[in-house]
């Protein structure tokens, strides 16, 4: 039970793939201009991550160490292709608006990273849960960033959510502000970098506060840590 709790904490907060490991930034920065796109890519990544973690964990005892990387890549590419085909078939509009970033999930290092670091060493149910939590952590960051950029950039939330969720979702659209001109900085890629930077900063502030609230036992004076870079 505690293993599951650790995995949950690691994936969503402590070792979040987007905020701490900084993996998969290419799709993260490129598609987060609206919540819908962010949620779509987040779900696709989540599915691939869970699928690949489960498969890697199942085959982990049969794959010799020397060829594990090509096998993992094959498994991941297979899952991405399957997710791509399914999205093409069932969420066509979203498939078009995500475009190249669905096949690019293959190159998301978070996925092969989890396959190598966790799933290849742990049993199936834990690997599945790890994939789910890592995927969830990634998706939450995508959605929060998408919400920030959509809100600041075009003053709406859940714009064209019907592409992902079907026609009923058109009513989800909230128009918070009405601009004559969109705030371009938020929509263009620099806005994504700034937004991600702010999110990482916010996470660090929260972490620091949690740390300072704990009654920390006075630490023994340590010698200076060896540095490999100069101080200047």
């Amino acid at each position: 039970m505690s293993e599951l709790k650790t995995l949950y904490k690691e994936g969503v907060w402590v070792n979040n793939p987007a905020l701490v490991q900084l993996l998969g930034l290419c799709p993260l920065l490129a598609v987060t201009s609206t919540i819908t796109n962010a949620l779509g890519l987040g779900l696709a990544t989540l599915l691939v991550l869970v699928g690949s973690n489960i498969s890697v964990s199942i085959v982990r005892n049969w794959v010799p160490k020397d060829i594990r990387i090509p096998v993992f890549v094959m498994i991941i590419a297979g899952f991405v292709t399957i997710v791509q085909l399914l999205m093409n078939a069932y969420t066509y509009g979203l498939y078009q608006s995500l475009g190249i970033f669905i096949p690019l999930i293959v190159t998301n290092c978070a996925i092969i990273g989890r396959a190598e670091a966790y799933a290849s060493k742990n049993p199936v149910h834990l690997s599945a849960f790890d994939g789910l939590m890592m995927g969830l952590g990634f998706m939450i960051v995508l959605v929060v960033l998408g919400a920030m950029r959509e809100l600041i950039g075009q003053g709406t939330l859940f714009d064209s959510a019907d592409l992902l969720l079907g026609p009923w979702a058109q009513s989800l659209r909230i128009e918070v502000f009405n601009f004559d001109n969109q705030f371009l900085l938020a929509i263009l890629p620099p806005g994504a970098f700034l937004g991600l930077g702010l999110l990482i900063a916010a996470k660090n502030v929260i972490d620091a506060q949690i740390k300072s609230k704990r009654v920390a036992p006075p630490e023994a004076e340590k010698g200076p840590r060896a540095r490999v870079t100069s101080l200047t």
Partner: protein
Amino acid sequence: MIISSMAKNGAILTAFALVTTGLVASIDALTADKIAEQEQQYLTSQLQEVLDPSTYDNELSKDCAIISDERLGPYANQIIYRARKNNKPVALVVRHVTPNGYSGDINLLTAVLSNGTIAGVRVTKHEETPGLGDKVEVKKSPWITTFKSLTVQSEDDARWAVKKDGGQFDQFTGATITPRAVVSSVKKAVLFAQSEFDAIFAAPNAECLEVTNE
């Protein structure tokens, strides 16, 4: 020793390749019909945007000719859909491309009626700047609907330009290149449709579903 381990690893890799390929192939087979249906539906909805479906009675998305003409942009083989009612020509829906946008090609769909006027224009694909040039999308701005019911008199029709160049079309604040490219491309496509109207209706039917518009 090394040979046998190579053979073993090779065999394992082959087995994985076969399994994953088989899996992808079977999912592909399962979704192929649905994907084709989605593409057909998307095409039909695109055509509906530019031409009122009540004006024709043939299956527009399956009646087309493929034409190469420099007035339709720099690429060969553009698809032209033919709308008929009671087997009489009603309108042509022309796919055309302009390379003169601000970033990359702009793909357009223009419907021209038999009397030479425009029934509708839509941008089907573009990479213009969000917030500036993307106002050519009907989702962002009604600008593209101002083409409806207009016609082109001749090659040197002065009204077919943005207002900055003395024409009748609004440019956008901060973006003149995009509307200028769209206006001139639509003008050429309309002239093309007017001059080739009968010839295109006489041409044999082709495979219409657009696959390569990337």
